[in-house]
């Protein structure tokens, strides 16, 4: 009960100190009044005597009031408030300093918070699957193609599954696209075709209904589908009675049996529904048909290394058993590493390093600023000390100032971070994994707060301690200098500027290298044109178009109609323009050439006759495909120059080859294919990757139901999408088109990650440069103002203003020179860490290093020039008169 009373009293005192003061005064006044009255009884000689007597009996009113107040515990807060108010007043007086300091801190902290949020979301935050770090992706390590993440053949995978002792789950899955019809406009959806075991490896839990079981993997039992939360909300309004409803995928009806949550993003975040995996009979025994992805889970207590060794041994056994498995190993990657691959991870750590550098520079700047200010206020401080302020009190006041400064900067920085995170996703490539998970969260706030506090203490403490150690007599003497403006202080300040410049050199070098990589890549010849081309994908459902002739007929009709559209210059089809990491490829045997064991596989794509013209690919020899190359006529192919180098060194036209390297002489099943044309190399794997051995077949002979239609237009390609859609609908009303974009957009998607990292590092380098320059300017400016007297003397003794200015600039350049040199040395060692991101330029590229050094020296000279000019304009008389 009295605990409550005590608490109430304390709270009331704390929150209404003004009232407390007033009431205490009132109470004491009342006391004195009563006492005066009492005293007056014995003192008839005058009321003033009574007042004095009462006063005397009371004692020192001020002292007791203060003692009471101190007892109430308000004293501490009083001091704090006093310090804060004083600090704010000084901020208002020196607005320039405050703005620069707060902005510097805000930029440093804001950038840290924003980037840390990104790194946190992409790398640090665990995936939304239980025990995600025990889920592993199992790949085939294709040593022949130097492809570490290749897909499996079904028998190989099943052998791995049966013989391993380290995985509790291992099974296959694929990604597929389906045409979804039966609910509204036909639309193309991305689907996961998964075995039930693969789903349970991920501990998938449906939010409604259930998932499929191994029973559904039997042909005939698989007419079921699990939809994702996104699809559930848009097409079925989130209605739980969706279970049992039918939908049509590629013309085949399936029943919805469950809904998976939106956070379940496997195989990719774009996956919208899942169907059971039914392995066709011929795939079960085809050890050389590779098209299965695999996911599994480590057994409890088994380490990644053990699993790798275990599966590696099985792969070796299989290689010994089956000659087709030679050179195939196993790669096991934990899921978190797979989602955010090593390149992106390196990029992010590089960026984090850049941010740390910027923060350091920002802190150094503010430290320097405070140093300078402390020196300027030395007089004031020493006077206060002479008047009796204790060391501790002074330090506390200065610390309060710097903490307040960093608090202001921190708040501004957090606001900046929120703003930046709104803008960042727009700059980032849209397929950056887990982009949706990026937002400012509690961890970030905590780290930012910690950084703020440490920053405050860091740059508040040193000047504070330095100032308080000032020797009184020295400073109070006329024209004397104290601790922070003496020789030692100058050296410290110069040292800080040099260190900042060194950091900037490292950052600028990094940015420069990335820029050069970018430029080099931009200049790499693609081998084809990407201008004014519209690209869209169509997938004809096998159910509706079972015969190859039907597929061919559809696309031929489509191309004919499209070519007739006004504004269309040419059109063609190809199965896939840009090669993925696992393209459609196989080994070949060229006539008259013995296969070598290190022969790489050749990629194959079906193209329509007009395709090479449409994309501006150059035919080097022979002819293009025509309409007469079709099913039933002689099998023909066009190869690229790279394939000619490997397989047909003595000319390719007219030469023949066969599929496979096995060497069967059965010509009915495996006929000879004749090369009729050679096309110039095209960089289809990406601008920074080598060209593969490529071959093209007439699409009429391959009749693949999935095609990329490329249309060259006169004018903006995207404006033709509507018309194309109409043309498609005329031929087949239920056929959707997907991924309509320009060829340039498609290409830029590939380099988006690179551009993103380059932009970010570039921004940081620019930021760091400006901060460092502000710092350099500030320091020189201050030093000049301190030496005004000396300069005045010099000029009075006859030195001309030009010489004075030159000496200031020379000094500044000396400092810059030291900093740049140190920076270059550090850069030469650290840029090696980012070499994975570079292309066509070495980490120690002399051109970049040289350019950075020259730029920095030039800009430092400029930063020093302005204060130097001010020094030159010093009027000797005024300077000498100054204190």
């Amino acid at each position, binding site marked *: 009960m009295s605990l409550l009373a005590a608490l109430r009293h304390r709270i009331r005192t704390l929150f209404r100190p003004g009232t407390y003061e007033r009431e205490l005064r009132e109470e004491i006044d*009342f006391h004195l009044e009563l006492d005066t009255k009492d005293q007056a009884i014995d003192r008839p000689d005058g009321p003033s005597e009574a007042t004095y007597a009462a006063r005397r009996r009371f004692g020192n009113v001020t002292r007791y009031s203060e003692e009471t107040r101190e007892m109430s515990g308000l004293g501490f807060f009083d001091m704090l408030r006093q310090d804060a108010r004083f600090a704010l007043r000084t901020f208002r007086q020196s607005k320039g300093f405050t703005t620069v300091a707060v902005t510097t801190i805000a930029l440093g902290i804001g950038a840290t918070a924003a980037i840390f949020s990104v790194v946190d979301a992409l790398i640090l935050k665990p995936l939304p699957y239980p025990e995600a770090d025990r889920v592993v992706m199992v790949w085939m390590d294709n040593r022949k193609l130097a492809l570490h993440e290749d897909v499996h053949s079904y028998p190989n995978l099943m052998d791995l599954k049966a013989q391993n002792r380290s995985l509790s789950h291992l099974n296959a899955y694929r990604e597929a696209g389906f045409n979804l019809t039966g609910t509204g406009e036909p639309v193309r959806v991305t689907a996961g075709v998964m075995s039930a075991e693969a789903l349970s490896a991920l501990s998938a839990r449906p939010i409604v209904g259930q998932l499929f079981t191994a029973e559904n993997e039997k042909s005939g039992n698989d007419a079921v589908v699990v939809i994702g939360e996104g699809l559930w909300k848009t097409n079925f309004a989130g209605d739980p009675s969706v279970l049992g409803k039918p939908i049509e995928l590629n013309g085949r009806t399936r029943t919805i049996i469950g809904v998976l949550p939106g956070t379940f993003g496997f195989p990719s975040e774009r996956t919208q529904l899942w169907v059971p995996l039914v392995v066709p009979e011929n795939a079960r025994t085809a050890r050389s048909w590779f098209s299965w992805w695999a996911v599994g889970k480590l057994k409890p207590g088994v380490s990644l290394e053990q699993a790798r060794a275990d599966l590696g041994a099985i792969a070796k056994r299989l290689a010994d058993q089956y000659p087709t498995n030679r050179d195939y190993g196993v790669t096991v990657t934990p899921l978190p590493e797979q989602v955010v691959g090593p390149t992106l991870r390196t990029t992010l750590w590089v960026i984090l390093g850049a941010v740390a550098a910027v923060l350091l520079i920002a802190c150094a700047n503010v430290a320097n600023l405070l140093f300078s200010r402390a020196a300027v206020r030395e007089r004031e401080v020493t006077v206060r000390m002479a008047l009796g302020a204790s060391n501790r009190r002074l330090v506390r006041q200065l610390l309060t100032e710097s903490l307040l400064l960093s608090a202001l900067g921190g708040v501004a920085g957090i606001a900046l971070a929120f703003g930046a995170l709104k803008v960042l996703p727009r700059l980032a490539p849209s397929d950056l994994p887990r982009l949706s998970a990026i937002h400012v969260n509690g961890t970030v706030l905590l780290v930012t707060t910690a950084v703020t506090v440490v920053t405050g203490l860091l740059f508040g403490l040193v000047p504070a301690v330095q100032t308080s150690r000032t020797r009184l007599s020295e400073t109070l003497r006329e024209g004397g200098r104290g601790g922070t403006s003496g020789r030692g202080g100058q050296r410290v300040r110069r040292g800080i500027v040099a260190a900042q410049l060194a950091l900037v050199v490292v950052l600028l070098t990094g940015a420069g290298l990335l820029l050069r990589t970018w430029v080099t890549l931009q200049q790499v010849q693609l081998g084809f044109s990407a201008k004014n081309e519209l690209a869209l994908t169509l997938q004809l459902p096998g159910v509706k178009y079972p015969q190859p002739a039907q597929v061919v007929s559809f696309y031929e009709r489509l191309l004919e109609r499209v070519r007739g559209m006004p504004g269309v210059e040419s059109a063609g089809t190809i199965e896939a323009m840009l090669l993925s990491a696992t393209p459609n490829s196989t080994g070949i045997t060229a006539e008259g050439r013995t296969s070598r064991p290190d022969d790489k596989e050749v990629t194959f794509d079906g193209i329509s006759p007009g395709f090479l013209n449409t994309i501006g690919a150059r035919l080097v020899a022979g002819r293009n495909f025509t309409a007469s190359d079709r099913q039933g006529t002689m099998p023909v192919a066009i190869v690229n120059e790279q394939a000619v180098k490997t397989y047909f060194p003595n000319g390719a036209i007219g030469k023949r080859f066969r599929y496979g390297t096995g060497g069967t002489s059965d010509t009915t099943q495996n006929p000879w294919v004749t090369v009729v044309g050679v096309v110039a190399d095209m960089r289809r794997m990406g601008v920074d990757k080598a060209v593969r051995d490529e071959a093209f077949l007439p699409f009429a002979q391959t009749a693949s139901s999935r095609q990329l239609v490329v249309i060259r237009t006169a004018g903006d390609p995207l404006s033709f999408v509507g018309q194309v859609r109409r043309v498609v609908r005329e031929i087949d009303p239920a056929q959707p088109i997907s991924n309509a974009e320009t060829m340039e957009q498609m290409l830029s998607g590939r380099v988006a990650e690179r551009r993103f990292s380059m932009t970010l590092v570039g921004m940081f380098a620019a930021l760091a440069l400006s901060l460092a320059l502000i710092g350099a300017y500030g320091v020189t400016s201050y030093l000049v103002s301190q030496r005004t007297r000396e300069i005045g003397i010099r000029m009075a003794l006859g030195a001309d203003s030009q010489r004075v200015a030159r000496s200031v600039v020379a000094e500044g350049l000396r400092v810059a020179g030291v900093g740049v040199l140190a920076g270059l040395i550090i850069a030469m060692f650290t840029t090696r860490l980012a070499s994975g991101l570079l292309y066509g330029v070495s980490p120690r590229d002399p051109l970049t290093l040289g350019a950075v050094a020259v730029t920095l020296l030039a800009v430092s000279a400029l930063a020093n020039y302005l204060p130097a000019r001010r020094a030159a304009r010093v009027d000797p008389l005024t300077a000498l008169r100054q204190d």
Partner: protein
Amino acid sequence: MTPTRKAAPAQDELLKGTLDMLVLRTLTVQSMHGYAIVRHIERLSGGVFNIEHGSLYPALERLQKNGLVVGKWGESPTGRRARYYTITAAGRHMLGAKVSAFDRVLAAIDGVMNGV
């Protein structure tokens, strides 16, 4: 004016403790305002305890902070606003403890002075 040095700590504690005890005892008689408390103590001690009136207020603040008394503004007999202090249950409890402690001290002194 130079800041007054406080009395030697031990003596200070004794004084503080005694004053607290006297104030608490006074308030068991009835709730009163600061002036009344100090006059009561002066009167009943026969003028021996002649403390500076002002020293009451830090003491009262301390007692309030520890929840031993509660202060409330009310009206004096002359119609003026005054703060009246009331002892709480915890205050009474503390008073008992302080009295026992004080008695022990007295007994100890007595023992030394009058013992063999």
